[in-house]
């Protein structure tokens, strides 16, 4: 079984998935990633799934769990490149992946990670937002 390569650059681990990810490969990736986080004390992980055109509940859960596990090890995971049809299907399946950060592409994902790792906390500008809307601070947690 081929293992997905994980590239370390600075404090960030970059995983660029090039083929359809089947079950064993996904679990293998999770394992390898956590190990690498431990060995390198990486603070951020960027997973690029722009090539993947099917994400079912199994893969969705693996991604979600990986983010949680990495979080416990003090590393932030950002998933980028979710295709529109994949996004729609994920939502219809009922997996909104609320726990993981997402961004449109690698560039945005890196910017987001940089923010998170750099520890920049944005203070809301102007008046406090009313009910039914999210504070502007959340803007930064969601793919920027």
């Amino acid at each position, binding site marked *: 079984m081929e293992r997905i390569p994980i590239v370390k650059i600075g404090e960030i681990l970059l995983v660029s998935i090039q083929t359809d990810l089947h079950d064993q490969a996904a679990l293998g990736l999770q394992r390898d990633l956590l190990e690498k986080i431990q060995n390198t004390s990486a603070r951020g992980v960027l997973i690029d799934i722009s090539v993947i055109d099917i994400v079912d509940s199994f893969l969705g859960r693996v991604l979600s769990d990986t983010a949680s596990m990495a979080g416990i090890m003090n590393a932030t995971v950002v998933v980028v490149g979710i295709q*529109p049809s994949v996004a729609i299907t994920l939502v219809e399946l009922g997996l909104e992946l609320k726990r993981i950060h997402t961004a*449109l592409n690698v560039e945005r994902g890196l910017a987001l990670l940089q923010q998170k790792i750099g520890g920049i906390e944005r203070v809301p500008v102007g008046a406090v937002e009313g009910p039914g809307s999210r504070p502007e601070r959340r803007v930064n947690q969601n*793919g920027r």
Partner: protein
Amino acid sequence: MPKVQAKLSEIFQKRREEILEKWVKQQTARGTGGASEEALRRECSEFINLLAGVTEAGAAEDNNPQMRAITDFLQGISKDRAKKGFSPTETAAFIFSLKEIILPMVQSAVKNEEDFTREVMPLSLLLDKLGIVTFESYVTGREEVILRQQNDMAELSTPVVKIWDGILALPLIGTLDSRRTMIVMEKLLQKIVDSASMVAILDITGVPMVDTLVANHIMKTVAATRLLGADCIITGVSPAIAQTIVHLGVDLSGVTTRSTMAEGLKLALKMTRQNLDDEREGSEKESDGIKGMKMQREHT
């Protein structure tokens, strides 16, 4: 298989030209609907040949090649005639009219009633069946047109517009049904990817009513845009809709709303400007490692 329709086969073999001539003359007399006599002759000739083929083969089951050949041919001329403005009745009548030509021929060639029925019954049933094929073709053709028009209508009524760098707007107008909302969602997501937008403003000022299904679709759209790293702002929520949503028990917490599109735009600008600030700040603080990687990525 015994040639039950020996007389009929013989007629097809020996008197094919005569059948063709008589048939063309009959059709011309009844009006060709603008088609040239040549074209009509070709159609009739082809049909008679195919019909002879089916009769020769003996059985008229749907799967044998002769039946398929004649069915395909009929579907073709049905579509053709429908385009030319023939009613389905006229096209079917065209098929049935062949009986008027062939049956008398068989009658004169056959000695008694029994033989006549035996020779002619299968042919008669076959032509009836083929007449119905033309009807079905017509209906299927119309259904295709309707589907296409439905799609076009849905497309036209769901514009997604880029109103600023990184900001998309969707002014939704009229009743939202499942189909439209689905199309809106797909269009929006694709546009987010294509324009690398960060905020989408869904304006429902022009939507008179929202039910659970539509509310759920909107929630789906919001969730899906989040997966693409973008945010949704819903604007133009009328008091009536606000009441409906609460009564339906739909949970809109976590969804940003504003009363008007203008307010929505204000917020969107703030969000995107902030974003650009962050990106700039982020890149200033970039470690060399990331800068190096970024440069590498530009080369791939």
